[in-house]
């Protein structure tokens, strides 16, 4: 009695229904269980959060002069859905851009992550106030555009780029690891901006609005009950002396290297110069990316902070460390004399220059005798009581490390390197166990070989000697608005050497600068008539080219106010460039005037960049 549909035809209908049914069920499962992304976007929908960006904290020099400040810029946002036809040429020219730039910005804006035609997305970043003022007068002509005021850095003096560091937009990895940051936030990337980011950044605020289906703002959410205002970042007083820093940068013009000056009593860094440098203003604003790229491609590496990241052999400056260890271990007395006739002749030998001979300890520092320190070094390592070379070396290494070598000093700047002090294990591997002795590693006697230090560690050594046996961790920040700095920047670190031995070293360094003519003093060029500078030259052999010119010093002798190290790459003897530069810096800092214009002129006119080029 039934009409009856052939079963295969019935099957077709059933199949169509089943396909729909299964597809919808599968899609539901997929959206709910497999793809999590939709759940996250739900919250952003009902309300629109408008971030209130705080101004970053200012940075002052040690005397309270503002160095790093803020200037307003404007990000132009667009809600694509509300953008109506407009005159692109006028739009671009008001903003001081080309039509191509605007076009490109439109394309890029729509490619950015989380783009939606109904959301306000950043179209153009960091429009300067002058252009923005022009644009604002005509903004009524352009529908669908909004403005987000921001602040970026501005520099009152074009100095200390490495020290301040720069600010940029956060990247994906930061956003993932730190919930504070969101896309388009700024963050300190290097220097003080990076290490004190937590204080400088302030606290973002937010305004919450309710939006309709077209993402248009309807009203403040709950009368603004959940809004928060932006809290500006804390201002920071750095330890830097702006005038000294600027002067140092001028002296280092056309030279490669570094100057670090520290106040020994406090560990405060007075100046930190890495040359070549760059104008910090270059890494601000719309051209930042392009400028950064060209700085990065520069073969002289201007972005690289040599003060804490370059590793140099300490050279002859290291003799004072060996002398102190010798005294402490009792293998050396101030009266110990060794004669020198052109070098140390045991083994492969170590050459020396011509100077009066024999010398006692103080004279050995004054004339920087290599031979003397070969004896001293071997006497330490081979000291009977140690029983073996390995033990002797370990004792020596422990002493060396107490000077802050081979480890980070923990300055309050990112990316500090720790330098190299070789280990027993290293030599056992390099030679073989038992295959080395004090003679094999004799280069360490004069600060060559497997040793390397940063200019900061070198300045810290000057600080240790000035303090007669201790240092305070060097730091670049003196005060944080309303907060005290980390206590690690107040603690004394004492070396393993008895303070009584330092006096001989100081005498030697005094004579090296202030010795009588003809006495063999190595750094007479650094001498000042009314300030007693104690210093020591170094000429660091460098496998890649000409020797580096090194000098470290402190002054005045009896009440040290400044400890300094100067490295000038490929510049030859320590006395040629490094010593005069250090001397000028000391005079500038202590007297704020220069009594030797001829010396200043000599340094300012010195161009050592072509020397480097020739070497290549």
């Amino acid at each position, binding site marked *: *009695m039934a009409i009856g549909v052939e079963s295969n035809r019935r099957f077709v209908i059933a199949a169509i229904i089943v396909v729909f049914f299964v597809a*919808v069920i599968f899609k539901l499962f997929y*959206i709910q269980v497999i793809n*999590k992304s*939709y*759940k996250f976007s739900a919250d952003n*929908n009902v309300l629109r959060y408008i971030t209130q960006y705080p101004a970053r904290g200012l940075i002052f020099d040690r005397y309270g002069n503002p160095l790093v400040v803020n200037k307003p810029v404007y990000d132009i946002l667009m809600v694509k859905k509300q*953008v109506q036809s407009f005159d692109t040429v006028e739009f671009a020219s008001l903003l001081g851009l080309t039509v191509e730039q605007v076009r490109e910005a439109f394309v890029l804006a729509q490619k950015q992550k989380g783009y939606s*035609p109904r959301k306000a997305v950043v179209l153009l970043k960091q429009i300067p106030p002058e252009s923005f003022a022009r644009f604002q007068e005509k903004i009524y002509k352009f529908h669908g555009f909004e403005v987000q005021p921001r602040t970026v850095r501005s520099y009152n003096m074009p100095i200390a780029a490495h020290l301040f560091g720069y600010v940029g937009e956060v990247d994906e990895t930061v956003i993932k690891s730190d919930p504070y940051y969101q896309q388009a936030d700024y963050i300190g990337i290097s220097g003080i901006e990076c290490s004190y980011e937590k204080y400088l950044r302030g606290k973002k605020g937010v305004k919450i609005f309710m939006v309709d289906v077209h993402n248009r703002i309807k009203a403040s959410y709950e009368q603004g009950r959940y809004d928060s205002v932006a809290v500006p970042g804390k201002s920071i007083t750095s330890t830097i002396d702006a005038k000294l820093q600027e002067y140092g940068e001028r002296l280092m013009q056309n030279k490669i290297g570094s100057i670090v000056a520290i106040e020994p009593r406090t560990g405060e860094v007075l100046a930190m110069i890495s040359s070549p440098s760059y104008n910090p203003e270059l890494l601000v604003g719309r051209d930042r990316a392009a400028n950064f790229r060209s700085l990065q491609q520069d073969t002289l590496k201007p972005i690289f902070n040599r003060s804490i990241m370059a590793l140099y052999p300490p050279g002859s400056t290291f003799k004072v460390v060996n002398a102190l260890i010798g005294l402490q271990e009792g293998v050396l007395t101030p009266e110990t004399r060794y004669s020198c006739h052109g070098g140390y002749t045991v083994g492969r030998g170590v050459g020396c220059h011509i100077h009066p001979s024999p010398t006692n300890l103080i004279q050995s520092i004054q004339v920087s005798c290599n031979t003397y320190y070969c004896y001293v070094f071997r006497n330490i390592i081979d000291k009977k009581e140690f029983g073996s070379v390995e033990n002797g070396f370990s004792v020596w290494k422990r002493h060396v490390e107490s000077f802050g070598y081979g480890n980070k000093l923990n300055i309050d700047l990112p990316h500090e390197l720790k330098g190299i002090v070789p280990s027993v294990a290293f030599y056992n591997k390099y030679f073989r166990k038992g295959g080395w002795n004090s003679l094999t590693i004799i280069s360490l006697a004069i600060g060559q070989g497997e040793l390397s230090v940063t200019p900061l560690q070198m300045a810290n050594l000057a600080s240790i000697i000035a303090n007669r046996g201790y240092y305070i961790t060097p730091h670049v920040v003196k005060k944080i608005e309303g907060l005290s700095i980390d206590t690690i920047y107040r603690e004394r670190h004492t070396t393993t050497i008895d303070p009584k031995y330092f006096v001989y070293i100081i005498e030697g360094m005094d004579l090296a600068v202030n010795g009588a003519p003809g006495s063999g003093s190595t750094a007479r060029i650094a001498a000042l008539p009314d300030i007693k500078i104690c210093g020591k030259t170094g000429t660091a052999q460098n496998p890649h080219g000409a020797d580096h010119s090194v000098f470290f010093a402190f002054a005045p002798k009896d009440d040290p106010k400044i400890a300094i190290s100067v490295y000038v790459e490929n510049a030859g003897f320590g006395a040629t460039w490094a010593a005069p530069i250090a001397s000028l810096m000391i005079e500038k800092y202590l007297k704020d005037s220069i009594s030797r214009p001829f010396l200043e002129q000599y340094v300012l006119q010195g161009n050592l960049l072509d020397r480097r080029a020739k070497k290549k």
Partner: protein
Amino acid sequence: MGVLFERYLKGDRVIWLLVMFLFFASLLLIYSSSSSLAFRYHDGNTSYFLIKQAAFLLMGFAIIWFVHLVHYNIWSGLSNLLLGLSIPLLGFTLLFGRNLNAASRWLEIPGLGITIQSSDFAKIALVIYVAKVLSQRQKEIKDFNQLFIPLILPIGLICALILPANFSTAALLGLTCWLMMLVGRVNLKYLLGYSGLGLLLVGLFIVAALHFNFGGRAQTWVNRIENFVSNDEKNDGNYQLEQSKIAIATGGIIGKGPGRSTQRNFLPHPYSDFIYAIIIEEYGVFGGVVIMIFYLILLYRAGLLVKRATRTFPAFLAFGLALLLTLQAFVNMAVATGVIPVTGQPLPLVSLGGSSLMFSSLAIGIILSVSRHQGKKELFEGEEVPVEEAKEKI
């Protein structure tokens, strides 16, 4: 016999229950999902839409009631007239009624306060017509030429008239008619041949539309106004789908609860095209599956009518109409979940709106009428062939 008669008068009780349930669900959902609409047009007075929809549902119920009392044979008699009426109606909307919702699908009937979608009317008319022709021509069903003029030509014409304004409705209707013919024993070879031809024509239309830009949709920007302000049209669909998926994702298994939808504020048509997303957001996958199963039950009940039918016309009619509603429901669900591209199909009997609801109610009324009269053995002269006879011919 009297008791039996009484029961047949009421029609299929399951379908009655289904309809009542769906109407109730509609009321709840419209109240919740129209809040954004109310926000925009009636100062946030959400009960405005609740009352309006309640009135619509009452009207729909009345239509079902009256229609189910009417003997289904009346539709057989009216079928030519209805089909004849729908052709100029579609043509008229295609040409003039083009303002509302951008596509030319709506026709306002003055005085009633209801905008009638002419394609809703045409859909029902065509299904009735096809059911009639199929039942009348069971004898000649194997003949290619006999089929073309009375069957293929009207189907093609109606679908072609709907197509420019509403592709998905045309496709839905075409598929429904195709399945009716399949059930109606049209030779599979012809059926496949015609559908191939149909698809070819649709393909040509699409190519031509893209090529010549007719309909005035894509204009060329002549001045220096750049194209980056013009391509919003295609982003729109993505946005709706995105929001719909957010609704589904946050609904979970049992949903947020009645009236708790937040996505209703972000879906441009939460009360019609994307109501299924709101169902899942508020009632979870559970609610979504229940709704889906209800439409399947409707189709199943119609299938039972076919199975028990002693005559072909009511069987084809009830099945065709049930198919039309079920397929439309599935298209709505498939759009909301992103199975198929965004296209505007309301959820029959649930979505807000007069036109869809009125004609869906009409369809339900006719199905109930068929179920009510099932078992009566009247035979009208020349109108249809008894089942036994038809069976022998296959």
